[in-house]
């Protein structure tokens, strides 16, 4: 079974703070994704990547950077966190693109106070 591990699982930071969310997948998947989940908005794609060093912009990228350092590791960076970025963040991976099964991590709950 595909494994996607996110850390930390919970994070509280202050407005203007610097946050890095980490994700590792151990199934040699090509694609990795960062989503945010908010009540009333469902799951929204922030950034995604189809390989190490590659980055593609998603649907809600403002205020976020991402970096894919290896096949396994994908990071989401919030350099000046704002309360509007309080959310549940999911990392996910898939072998190919949008028409193959996407495997999600358990999520990171981020609160910006």
């Amino acid at each position, binding site marked *: 079974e595909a494994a996607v591990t996110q850390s930390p699982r919970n994070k509280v930071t202050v407005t203007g703070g610097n946050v890095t969310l980490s994700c590792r997948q151990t199934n040699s998947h090509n694609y990795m994704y960062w989503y945010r989940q908010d009540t009333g908005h469902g799951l929204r794609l922030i950034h995604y990547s189809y390989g190490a060093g590659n980055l593609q912009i998603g649907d809600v990228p403002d205020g976020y950077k991402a970096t894919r350092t290896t096949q396994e590791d994908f990071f989401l960076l919030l350099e000046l966190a704002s309360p509007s970025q309080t959310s549940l963040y999911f990392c996910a991976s898939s072998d190919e693109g*949008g028409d193959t099964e996407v495997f999600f991590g358990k999520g990171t709950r981020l609160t910006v106070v």
Partner: protein
Amino acid sequence: QQQVRQSSQSLTVWEGETAILNCSYENSAFDYFPWYQQFPGEGPALLIAIRSVSDKKEDGRFTIFFNKREKNLSLHIKDSQPGDSATYFCAASRGGNTGKLIFGLGTTLQVQP
């Protein structure tokens, strides 16, 4: 605007009934339609998926009915069980290596014993 719409935010059925969750989409280029199931505290997980060349896909108690002309689909959960209580996301993509899966806002299903 929402490219994938789920008609109900929530749905309650009794144990043993058939739950019907409806979904519609805007983009005629979408050709892959998965449903994801999410339990509290977990990430979404693929439940069942259909491609636009088919009008029906069945997997145990779960069936997708797809109408390409009307651009809508529905997920039927036969003999609903309390363990089916979860949030269900309809999603769509254009297929191929486009890397983007578009999610609806989700329908939270409650199955009453």
